[in-house]
């Protein structure tokens, strides 16, 4: 499928590329100006992860980050977001930790979560990072995409409707 570069496609000059590489795999790539051991460190020290995993521009905050970064170790990330009082929790297990070249972990906060593999490939002092989210099936990835689509927006339309009614009622009184 070659839909990734059409429509809402990324600006061609962006350093971060993302594509659906197969029925059940998403792949993100980016090059960093530093050796692999440094980039790897930023992915594996919780106090460093805290600083970049929840970008401010996305309106989410990382409330806590516990990660026992070794093969078989577990992690638990808790996010806060303005859309809800309930924090969101993300949990899983590291299947492979090979400094400074490869990290593999599971995503177990919901069923049929992806297995994430990150590889760090150093060349001339720069590091090519490749992140893959591999879902157990095409259906699982399709469902993840569908859950974030505008098709599920019925409830929000109702809320907006309510808001517009309130606004026009207020306008009438003023």
């Amino acid at each position: 499928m070659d839909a990734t570069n059409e429509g809402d496609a990324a600006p061609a000059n962006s350093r971060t590329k993302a594509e659906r590489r197969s029925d059940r795999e998403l792949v993100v790539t980016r090059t960093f100006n530093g050796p692999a051991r440094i980039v790897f460190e930023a992915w594996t020290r919780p106090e460093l992860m805290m600083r970049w995993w929840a970008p401010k521009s996305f309106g989410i905050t990382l409330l806590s980050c516990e990660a026992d970064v070794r093969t078989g170790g577990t992690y638990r990330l808790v996010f806060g977001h303005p859309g809800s009082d309930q924090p969101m929790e993300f949990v899983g297990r590291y299947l492979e930790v090979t400094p400074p070249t490869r990290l593999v972990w599971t995503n177990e906060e919901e069923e049929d979560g992806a297995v994430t593999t990150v590889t760090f490939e150093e060349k001339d002092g720069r590091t090519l990072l490749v992140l893959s989210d591999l879902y157990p099936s095409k259906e699982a990835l399709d469902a993840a995409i569908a859950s974030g689509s505008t098709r599920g927006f019925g409830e929000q339309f109702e809320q907006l409707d309510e808001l517009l009614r309130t606004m026009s009622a207020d306008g009438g009184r003023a």
Partner: protein
Amino acid sequence: MRAAAPFYTLNYMVQYSQSRFDASFAALSDPTRRGVLEQLGRADASITDLAEKFHMTLTGMKKHVGVLEQAGLVTTEKVGRVRTCRLGRSRLEEEAAWIERYRQLWDARFNELDKIVEELNRKEKSNGRDE
């Protein structure tokens, strides 16, 4: 630690925080268009069906549907002589938009990560000089 689940909520913020917000809001400010969305929420419908239901001319309804389509709230597809309307964008458009949001999340993360890599680089170099 994955991007997919946060999108469920992030989607709302990203989708409506950008220019699309204006188009969506303008599209939704009209009671007929909100009625059309409500109707399409129950079942897909042709422009002719919608025009009848809302007691409008075909041309009038086409205009309303056009505004909703521009805002990405409705997709239309012409089969033979009938143009069918349904909620949301086409599946391919949805997927491309979702992947773009996924990319934007990683891009935003990586922009922050760049700063940390730079900082660690500097630290390593100055430590190297100290030794």
